[in-house]
């Protein structure tokens, strides 16, 4: 923007402000100004894509190697060039099948590369980060309290699973249910606290365990080959809780993201347009807006009456 003449900056600011207000007018209701702005945007972005496709794609990859080859192998680019041109045959019904060769190459290439790359780049690193030791063995100690709470943890957890699987859990009153769940959670926390000794190690163990429990329970929630009933229902419900925390965080950040764009546009309108425009610019702008409004409203009326 610093490379333009002052009059070009002023003109551009007014055009941008006009487009911004025309698009925001859609918040009131759909109208000709919005449609005009939308079509101008589509035209500009498509024209932009054409230029990018020419300079950065076709000219760089096809034209330059053929025109200024570094070696004889550069001439081979004519073959993918032909395959690329074959893609346009999809617009013609009779010879549309020729585009399948180009698509076949693209899809074969992408599938062949994706399979090993995704295993190496996504599956193994993320599984490795999940399956980490919950605590450092050097910090772990079997003392009487940790042994007692360890046994209690195993006992409570086994009892919980047993009563859920045998359908006795659903017949219990709230007090009993709370007792067994709080017992399981409390004994687990106290076991870790007494076993690892320090709050820091305990928190590290808690974080690692929360990742492990989260990943396993969410994966299980999406696993539909087994019915989610009894004890497995509890696992799926844990997955839902983690997912709800994820969606809540995502919602909060989405609000932040979208609002940032609105802030940017309104800052532009206030600081760059309203505050920077001179009286002369306002006069010219006002006249242009009136002319455009009259033309748009007349064409809309003509369109409506011809349809009627």
């Amino acid at each position, binding site marked *: *923007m*610093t*490379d333009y003449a002052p009059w070009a900056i002023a003109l551009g600011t007014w055009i941008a402000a006009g487009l911004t207000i025309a698009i925001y007018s859609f*918040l*009131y209701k759909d109208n000709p100004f919005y449609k005009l702005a939308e079509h101008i945007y589509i035209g500009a*972005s498509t024209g*932009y*894509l054409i230029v*990018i*496709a020419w*300079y*950065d*794609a076709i000219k*760089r*990859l096809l034209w*330059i*190697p053929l025109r200024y080859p570094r070696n004889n192998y550069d001439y081979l680019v004519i073959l993918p060039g032909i395959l690329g041109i074959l893609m346009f045959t999809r617009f013609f019904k009779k010879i549309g099948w020729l585009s399948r060769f180009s698509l076949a190459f693209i899809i074969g*290439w*992408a599938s062949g*590369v*994706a399979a090993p*790359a*995704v295993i*190496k*780049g*996504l599956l193994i*690193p*993320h599984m*490795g*980060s999940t399956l980490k030791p919950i605590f450092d063995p050097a910090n772990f100690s079997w003392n009487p309290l940790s042994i007692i709470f360890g046994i209690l943890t195993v006992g409570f957890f086994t009892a919980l699973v047993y009563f859920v699987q045998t359908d006795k859990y659903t017949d219990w009153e709230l007090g009993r249910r709370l007792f067994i769940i709080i017992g399981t959670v409390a004994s687990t926390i106290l076991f870790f606290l007494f076993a690892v000794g320090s709050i820091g190690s305990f928190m590290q163990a808690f974080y690692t365990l929360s*990742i492990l429990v989260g990943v396993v329970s969410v994966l299980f929630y999406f696993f539909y080959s087994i019915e989610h009933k009894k004890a497995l229902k509890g696992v799926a419900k844990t997955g839902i809780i983690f997912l709800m925390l*994820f969606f809540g*965080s*995502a919602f909060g*950040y*989405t*609000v*932040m*993201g*979208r*609002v*940032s*764009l*609105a*802030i*940017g*546009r*309104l*800052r532009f309108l*206030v*600081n760059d347009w309203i505050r920077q425009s001179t009286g002369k610019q306002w006069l010219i702008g006002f006249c242009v807006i009136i002319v455009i409004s009259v033309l748009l409203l007349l064409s809309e009326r003509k369109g409506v009456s011809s349809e009627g």
Partner: protein
Amino acid sequence: MNIKFIDKLLKIDRRIIFVLVVIAIVIPILFPLNLPVQVTDEVRGVFNEVEKLPPGSTILVAFDYEPSTTPEMEPMGIALMRQCFDKGLKVVGISWLQQAPGNAIKVLSKIQGEYDTKAAEGKREKSLVYGEDYAYMGFQPGWQAMILGIGRDFKGTCKVDYKGNDAFSLPILKDIEKLADFPYLICLHDDSMINHWIIYGHEITGIRIGSMCTAVMAPGIYANLNAGQITGIVGGLKGGSEYEKLLKYRGAATSGMDSQTVIHVLIVIFILVGNFAYLIKEHHLKKERMR
């Protein structure tokens, strides 16, 4: 509580809500609040990684955001460029999103203008020179193929820069043969390109990556941060404001946080009022049914 009032509250015209949103955004623009910003570890993860690079190092910056997210991404891009050039680092830009080159050229030309002015005022020894201090390779089609290609042969894959200069003739690329020759890659993205850079770039060549992204993308990348695949995340306008604080200046991102704060509080009020009215109405309906 009068149930008719609750009903009216629940059926309020949305255009009134739109007007309140505009007011909440515009008032802090007209009357700045100058709110302080606290820096998080995720942002430090990117900042410190750039800070520890010795002067003369060349970093790769992937400009992969569309014009639609410019208000969020441009302040981050400008802050990053200022940090790099003030430290004496060199920057090579690249894009694999077709809408991105315009944004990259905009940021780089803004920074060029800024440093031209600094050099003219004597605040800097010399301005930035294209081809020596920075270069932009333009849009590289092919997504994964581009990353894999530059992973093995950077100049051979790019061939020319966005101005049409031969990549082999650019002084900045003299010592760069492949992706791993860059000590750090920062991806400015508004979609899931970071995953491709991680899978085809970091995991295959070992290049260290930092993410500068929109707020919409940020929550999804924490898993990559946790796995050690990226060094840090600068997410959204908030992340940009934190980066500006670390660089000790108040830019567009920090100024935008005033409006961001007010609008967030407004939306929280909307949610609480909406649910409060809903719960009152439900309670009233329950009582009616029991009668």
